[in-house]
């Protein structure tokens, strides 16, 4: 495969601690397996773009890697406390100002100042506005600026460019490039071309057969 840099065999045993390694992962949504046998390695300084049709399980995969739901089987290593996750909802409080929203996340993650994040996404002039009065694209920029204040090395992003205009997409691509140059890595599910020098992982071949999860698991799932 062309993107073989990202597909190192899971059994290679040469795991660098900083890599995000996913091996033989099976994930389920609502008790139904969606992706099975998925393996990849994401190294520091690299980005990996996830592709696949709607409903294939990209969001479920990203939530599993972020630790929001357990995998059915398989292993994820190197993700513990190193993930900055951003999904469709930005976690923005409408009654707080842009600065207050961003400062809150900066303090929760105990990372540095918010000024670079404001500048990277051109939010400086909006900083005192209530987040509720921002447009959809501006809110999204605020949600992405949050990634910069987390100080986390692995960005796990689910459709980050929704409602962004071309200028904001370029801003975002620049932010990702800066993050990669700093030694971070990014796992991005997107349908558009970001112009990044990134590997592409099409998850379509890993689609699980539509059998329900192994009996005991499915039974537990109903009660958990």
């Amino acid at each position: 495969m062309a993107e073989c840099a990202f597909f190192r065999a899971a059994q290679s045993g040469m795991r660098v601690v900083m890599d995000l390694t996913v091996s033989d992962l099976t994930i389920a949504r609502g008790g139904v397996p969606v992706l099975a046998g998925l393996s990849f390695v994401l190294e520091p300084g690299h980005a990996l773009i996830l592709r696949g049709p709607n409903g294939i399980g990209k969001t479920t995969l990203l939530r599993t890697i972020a630790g929001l739901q357990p995998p059915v089987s398989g292993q994820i290593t190197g993700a513990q406390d190193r993930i900055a996750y951003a999904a469709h909802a930005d976690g923005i409080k409408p009654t707080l100002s842009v600065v207050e929203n961003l400062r809150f996340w900066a303090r929760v993650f105990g990372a540095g100042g918010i000024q670079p994040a404001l500048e990277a996404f051109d939010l400086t002039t909006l900083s005192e506005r209530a987040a509720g009065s921002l447009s959809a694209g501006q809110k999204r920029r605020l949600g992405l600026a949050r990634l910069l204040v987390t100080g986390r090395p692995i960005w796990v992003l689910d459709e980050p460019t929704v409602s962004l205009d071309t200028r904001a997409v370029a801003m975002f691509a620049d932010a990702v490039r800066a993050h990669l140059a700093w030694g971070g890595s990014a796992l991005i599910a997107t349908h558009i071309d970001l112009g990044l020098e990134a590997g592409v992982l099409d998850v379509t071949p890993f689609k699980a057969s539509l059998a329900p999860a192994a009996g005991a698991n499915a039974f537990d799932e109903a009660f958990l």
Partner: protein
Amino acid sequence: MIALLLRDLRLAVRAGGGFGLGLAFFLIVTVLVPFAVGPQSALLSSIAPGVLWLGALLACLLSLDRLLALDWEDGSLDLLATAPLPLEAAVTIKALAHWITTGLPLVLVAPVLGVLLNLPGPGYLWLVVSLAAGTPALSVIGTFGAALTVGLKRGGLLLSLLVLPLYVPTLIFGAEVARRGALGMETLTPLLMLAGISAGALALLPFASAAVLRVNLR
């Protein structure tokens, strides 16, 4: 942790935060009771401790459905779950923020409303003491209920049905402290029971809330 507490307090006092809603509800309930019962001051003063406790309990219930549901809707809960802060700490802080914005004001206005119900003189101190000891349990138990119903649309009613039975021990001992205090009787035993319930709920329920929340976030 302080950041989360400050954010929740700030959100509560901003527009639409619901601060004061519980207080206004408490006030209205206590004002309505004399209208319903009639102008019999002896009857009023004997039911005052129970009515005040019931009013405070229902007022506490009012703001529970927004405790976690708002964070769930805008995605903050997902982000908090991936943050360095343990979810147990996050739910404890959110319960504390709920107590500061709902429980504490109720404790402070209860003596004023006691006047409306002709609460006997010695009862004021014990009313405040019992509410101060009991309302933390109401917030912590309520947070557990909110965690249980977090993913549900219109979960507010279900939340009330789940939480109200769990409030029964707190209500029994809390109202008993206030009643005995108002009659000038010994209050130590129910007060210790009440404080025990609060301490136990505070020690155990955050773990249950966090576990339930993890399941609901899947």
